[in-house]
């Protein structure tokens, strides 16, 4: 690794940290802008009780002071405060609980998307313009255009309701099949197209022609010379893929009643549970920012063209 790459990495880390800070700040002040508070709509409580609640949760102090206290708590102790709606539970615990299920869902979906996408993309590139290629392209275009909640709902209707093949509830292992598939469809389609175009690009390179001119067999060219180079751009997609899975899980967990962090987030928005909204936004945002960072760095390190300097 040379100095230029190192400099790039440091710059990206700096940007990532800055982004996280911006996220925390924006989230905090945006929530403050909402008129009324988390207690609006509840049964009428006495002024004294209200004041007590506000004092307990620190809502009576001036905004800037609240902000810095919050910032400090989050960064040093990962303490997002207590949930305003689920009495007695800390936000961090709720998030941790939800993450267990959601992470499982997400990782399986990502793995599925990656493996299927690369295989299909390679097949399409190698059989370019033949029937299988056209079929794959049409299907992936369709999946890339359909919002996840559409796919999810359709799958739910088809497999769960009409055919009674899989349970609608996400709490059981079998019940995770449909949510995983729903989450994986868009990334799979995207990765297929990415792999295909990357492979076509690589196959047109001079060094592939050299290999053929040496007498290397077709199979060896594909798996040896071409594949390694083709997969490099796929690394750049890791970050956006995670972002998609995170936001997709919001919807998918709603549809399939999966007890994960996505569903918790949506309810916290409806209930205006300040600490919960902020905590979840920050955690999820950090996850995405970190993944983007890892993806960017990996790409720069692995790309042989960079090493030409």
């Amino acid at each position: 690794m040379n100095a230029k790459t190192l400099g790039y990495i440091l710059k990206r880390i700096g940007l990532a940290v800055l982004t996280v800070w911006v996220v925390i700040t924006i989230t905090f002040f945006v929530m403050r802008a909402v008129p009324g508070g988390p207690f609006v709509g509840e049964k009428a409580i006495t002024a004294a009780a209200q004041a007590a609640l506000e004092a307990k949760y620190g809502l009576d102090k001036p905004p800037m002071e609240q902000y810095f206290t919050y910032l400090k708590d989050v960064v040093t102790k990962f303490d997002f405060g207590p949930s305003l709606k689920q009495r007695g539970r800390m936000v961090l615990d709720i998030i941790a609980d939800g993450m267990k299920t959601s992470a499982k869902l997400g990782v399986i979906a990502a793995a599925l998307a990656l493996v299927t996408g690369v295989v299909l993309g390679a097949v399409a590139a190698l059989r370019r313009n033949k029937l299988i290629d056209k079929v794959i392209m049409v299907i992936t275009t369709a999946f890339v255009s359909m919002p996840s909640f559409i796919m999810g709902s359709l799958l739910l209707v088809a497999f769960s309701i009409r055919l009674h093949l899989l349970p609608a509830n996400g709490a059981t292992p079998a019940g995770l099949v449909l949510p995983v598939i729903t989450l994986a469809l868009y990334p799979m389609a995207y990765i297929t197209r990415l792999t295909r175009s990357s492979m076509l690009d690589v196959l047109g390179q001079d060094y592939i022609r050299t290999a053929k001119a040496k007498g290397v067999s077709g199979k060896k060219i594909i798996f040896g010379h071409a594949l390694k180079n083709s997969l490099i751009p796929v690394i750049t997609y890791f970050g956006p893929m995670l972002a998609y899975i995170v936001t997709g899980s919001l919807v998918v967990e709603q549809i399939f009643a999966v007890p994960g962090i996505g569903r918790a987030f949506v309810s916290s928005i409806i209930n205006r549970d300040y600490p919960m909204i902020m905590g979840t936004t920050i955690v999820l945002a950090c996850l995405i920012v970190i993944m983007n960072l890892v993806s960017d760095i990996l790409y720069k390190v692995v790309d042989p063209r960079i090493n030409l300097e």
Partner: protein
Amino acid sequence: MPLLEVKDLRTSFFTPTGEVKAVNGISFNLDRRKVLGIVGESGSGKSVTAYSIMQILASTGKIVGGSIKLDGQELVDAGEKVMKTVRGNRISIIFQDPMTSLNPTYTIGHQLMEAIMLHTDRNKQQAYDRAVEMLRLVNINEPEKRMKQYPFEHSGGMRQRIMIAMALACEPDILIADEPTTALDVTIQAQILELMKSLQEELGMAIILITHDLGVVAQMCDEVIVMYAGSICEQGTAEEIFYRPRHEYTKGLMRSIPTADTAGTKLHPITGTPIDLLNMPEGCPFAPRCDNAMKICLTQRCERMQVNDEHQAACWMNVKAGVEDGSIEIGGEDGDADA
């Protein structure tokens, strides 16, 4: 028997906009230990000819006619199995751009040994030794060190030497060099050409040298083929072609080279632009740009004709000259009658 016999080769590319007739019926022979130069502009079909021989055309390209015989064995339609034993083994090719012709993610050693182990019975250690030997042969110092390095760590000239080493590792009968020095500095050019010449003598192989640089041709080649728009204009020994060109295109090329004698006078480029291979006109492809074009040139192609034992040309001017000095008689509508 000539080592390589190409007869009436036709290669086309089938694109969405139509059939591009890149090579339109060319024939030539290559003898052992000879250096054949193929000269022409971009788009003349010289590279496509080479790729057709090796059958490494792009997916849209196809040999649509003719025959290519290597030592009597027909290669066209011989199938991939046969071609895989030919490529890198009996015929090798080195390409124009050494920067992009080597895989950036494999070490040099790997790429060299791959070729060796594919075509010979050597085991890994023997292949390694052979690879090191080849690197030494092409005058690369510290060959063991280089084996572990990657292509991007070397300059253009070095990479071209590595390409040559890779191409010659299995001692092919024919080395095809497609514009081997075009992408290199002038000083490196000379070195590479020197290297190729000495290797040719040492290893006893034939070389097909494809270039648009007439200077390179003059330096290296025993015989020359001049191509334009997919057809051969003229072929013969280097001396014949350079000193006594008999095709208007070749004459134009020779005229356009500035020499010490012509210093101070105007340059004579060939006017006009290359032809559109999608819309080939009838008649001689060079006619629209030819200062001496005649009416017949626009409507009929001239066949290849012997100028002398070592020289053939396809130009109506020769026919006209022949008629004028009496060595050719032309028949009228129906057979030989005197003009």
